[in-house]
C-alpha cells in the first residue's frame, strides 16, 4: 500500500494533478454547479467547457513549446507569431471584396500559416545552423515581431466582419467549441507522431546531448528546424483562434504574455527546461491548471486583477515541489520515518 503510494507520489504528474484537483475543489465549494455541463441550443455549456475553450490557445502553443523545450530550447517568439498571423489574416480579409466568403477566409488562414512557417524556419535556422542560444534567437523575433505585426496592421486594430472567420474562434461543431476540437487534433497529432514513432525519442536525445545524438546518426539540425517550425505553426493556429474570437487583430495585445503561460504550462506539466524529457499529457494538465486558476479567481470572487499574483504563487509552489532539493528533503524525511518505524518493530 505504502509502496504504491510512494510510486504515485514520485510520479512526475502527481503534484500538477493534485494542484488541478485542489483548484477544482475550491471551485466546487465556491460554485456548486461547477461540474454541470448542460446542452443549450445544441451546444455544450458549463464552466468546464469554458475552461477548455479559453485554455485551447494556450494549450496549442504549449504543445509546440513542449517539443521545443524537449530539445533543451525555448521559443519566446510565439506571442509575436500569434500577433503576426492574426494581423495577416485580418488584413487579407479586410482587403478582399468578399470578406464573408469561405474562400477568402481559407486564403487568409493559409497565407497566415505559411508566413508563420517561414518565421518558425527563421528561428530554426538561427538555432540549428547559426547556433545561437534558443532563448536569444527567439528573443529577436519576440522583439521585432510585434513591430512587424504593427507594420501589417498599420498601427490600427483591424476589425473584421466575416462569419466564417468568426466561426473559427467561437463556433461549435457537434456541440463542442471549434477551438477545443482544433486543440484536440493538434494534441492527438503531436502525441501520435512523436510517441508512436521514434521521433519523440530523437527529440529527447537531441535535448540530452546534441553532439552525441548527431554522432549516433540522429539528424539534430533537421530536427531542430522541424521543432521550431512546428512551434510557430502552433502559435499561428492559436493566434488565428484568438483573433477570430474577438474578430479583431490587435498587434499589441494578441497573445501578449501567452509565451509565458505556455512555458508555465510545460513546466507545471513536469517537462524539465533542461530538456531531454517531455510529457505532452503533463503539458495538457499544466495548461488546464493555468486556465482553471484564472477561472477560479473569477468564481471565488477575487478581483481578476489578482490573477497574476496567484499565477506567481502556483508557479512558485509547483517549481519548489518539483525541485530536486525538496525531493531530497522528502526522501530523507521518509527514510527517517522508516528507520523509526523499523526500530519500533524491533523493540516490540
Amino acid at each position: 500500500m505504502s509502496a504504491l503510494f510512494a510510486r504515485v507520489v514520485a510520479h512526475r504528474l502527481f503534484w500538477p494533478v493534485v494542484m488541478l484537483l485542489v483548484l477544482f475543489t475550491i471551485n466546487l465549494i465556491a460554485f456548486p454547479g461547477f461540474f454541470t455541463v448542460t446542452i443549450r441550443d445544441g451546444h455544450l455549456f458549463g464552466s468546464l467547457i469554458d475552461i477548455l475553450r479559453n485554455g485551447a490557445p494556450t494549450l496549442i502553443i504549449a504543445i509546440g513549446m513542449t517539443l521545443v523545450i524537449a530539445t533543451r530550447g525555448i521559443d519566446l517568439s510565439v506571442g509575436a507569431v500569434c500577433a503576426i498571423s492574426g494581423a495577416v489574416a485580418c488584413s487579407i480579409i479586410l482587403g478582399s471584396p468578399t470578406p464573408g466568403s469561405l474562400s477568402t477566409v481559407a486564403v487568409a488562414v493559409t497565407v497566415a500559416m505559411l508566413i508563420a512557417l517561414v518565421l518558425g524556419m527563421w528561428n530554426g535556422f538561427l538555432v540549428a545552423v547559426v547556433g545561437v542560444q534558443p532563448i536569444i534567437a527567439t528573443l529577436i523575433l519576440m522583439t521585432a515581431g510585434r513591430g512587424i505585426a504593427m507594420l501589417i496592421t498599420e498601427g490600427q486594430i483591424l476589425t473584421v466582419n466575416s462569419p466564417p472567420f468568426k466561426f473559427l474562434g467561437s463556433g461549435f461543431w457537434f456541440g463542442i467549441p471549434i477551438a477545443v476540437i482544433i486543440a484536440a487534433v493538434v494534441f492527438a497529432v503531436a502525441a501520435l507522431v512523436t510517441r508512436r514513432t521514434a521521433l519523440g525519442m530523437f527529440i529527447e536525445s537531441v535535448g540530452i546531448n546534441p553532439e552525441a545524438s548527431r554522432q549516433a546518426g540522429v539528424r539534430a539540425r533537421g530536427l531542430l528546424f522541424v521543432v521550431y517550425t512546428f512551434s510557430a505553426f502552433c502559435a499561428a493556429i492559436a493566434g488565428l483562434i484568438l483573433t477570430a474570437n474577438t474578430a479583431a487583430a490587435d498587434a499589441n495585445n494578441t497573445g501578449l504574455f501567452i509565451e509565458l503561460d505556455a512555458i508555465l504550462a510545460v513546466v507545471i506539466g513536469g517537462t524539465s527546461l533542461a530538456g531531454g524529457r517531455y510529457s505532452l499529457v503533463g503539458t495538457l494538465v499544466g495548461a488546464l491548471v493555468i486556465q482553471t486558476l484564472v477561472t477560479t479567481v473569477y468564481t471565488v470572487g477575487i478581483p481578476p486583477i489578482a490573477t497574476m499574483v496567484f499565477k506567481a504563487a502556483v508557479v512558485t509552489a509547483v517549481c519548489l515541489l518539483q525541485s530536486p532539493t525538496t525531493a531530497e528533503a522528502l526522501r530523507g524525511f521518509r527514510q527517517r520515518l522508516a528507520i523509526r518505524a523499523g526500530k519500533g518493530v524491533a523493540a516490540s
Partner: protein
Amino acid sequence: MTNLLEAPQQPKLPAGPGTPSTRRLGATIRNLMTSPKYGPVIVTAVLFIAVFVIGGVRYRGFFSGQVFLNLLVDNSYLIVLAVGMTFVILTGGIDLSVGAVVALSGMIAASLLQTGWSPSVVIPLILVLTSVLGLLVGLMIHVFKVQPFIATLAAMFLARGLCYMVSQSSISITDPVFVSLAQTRIPLGGILSITPSVIIALVVVAIAVWVLHATRFGRTVYAIGAGEQSGLLMGLPVARTKVLVYVISGFCSGLAGVLFTFYTLSGYPLTAIGTELDAIAAVVIGGTLLTGGYGFVLGSVLGVLVLGVIQTIITFEGTLSSWWTRIFIGALLLVFIILQKVLTARRR
C-alpha cells in the same frame, strides 16, 4: 584592472574606416576586434559614433551636446536596469522581472506619497523591498535549483500582479521633493543641462565598474559565468555570489523604478511592459556574452545609448512610426548575436 577597462575605448579612433596605420598597431587592433572580450564592445562604440554622425549629417540640430545629454536624461532608468542585468547575465543567468519591478516601485512610491509618507522613508523602503524580492528569487534559483528564467518569470508575475492590487489606474505624484527632483536641471555650461537622475545613474555605473573589476565579488561573478564548477573547485563563494547578483538586480530595478517615477511623475500598473527586453537587448548589444563570463558594465551603458540614439533618430525622422524602433532593436540584436558567435567561434 582599470586600464583593462579603458582599453576598449582607446582603439576606437584608429579603428575607423580607411585609416592607415603601422603593422603592429594593425595587429593589435585586429586582435582586439576579434577578441570575444573586447570585439563586440568596440563594434558597439563604433556603431554608436557612426549612427550619431549619420544623424548629425541628416538632421539639422541633431549634432549637439544636448541631444547627447538627452540620451542620458531619457534613459537614466534603463542604464541602471542594464547595470543590474549585466551582473545577472555575467553569471549566465537572466532576470525577466525587472520591467514589472520598475512598475511596482513606481506604484508603491505613488501610492505611499499620496497618503502622505515622506520621500525619505518611501525611497529606502522601495529599495529594501525590491532587494528582498531579488533575494527570494536568488534563493529560489540557488537553493531549489529552479531555472533563472522560471524563477524570475514568477517574480515578474508577482510584481505585475501586486501593481494591479495597489491600483488599477494611474496615480500622479505631487510630492514637492519628487516634483523638484523631476524638474531640476543641473546646468553644465551654456545651454547644456542634465537631471539629478543622470548623476544617480552615472554613480551606479561607477560603483558597478568598481565592484566588478576591483573586488573579489566581481571576480567571482566573472568566474561563475566562465564555469560554475571550476569556480566551486577553486573555493570561490559561488552560492553567495549567485544569490547576490539577483539582489543587485532587484536593487537596481527598484532604483530604476524610482528614477522612472522622477521621469514620469506617476505610477501606472501597465508601465514599463517589455522594459526587461530593452535591458537584455542593451546588455547583449553592449557585448556581454549571454552564456556569461565576458562583458563590461560600460558596454551595457553603450548598448543603452545605441538604443536611445536609434529612438532619437526615429523621432527626428518624423515619418517613421514608433514601431520601427522595435524592428531596429530586433535587427541590431541579431547582428550582435551573430557577431558574438563568429568572434567566439574563431577563438576556439
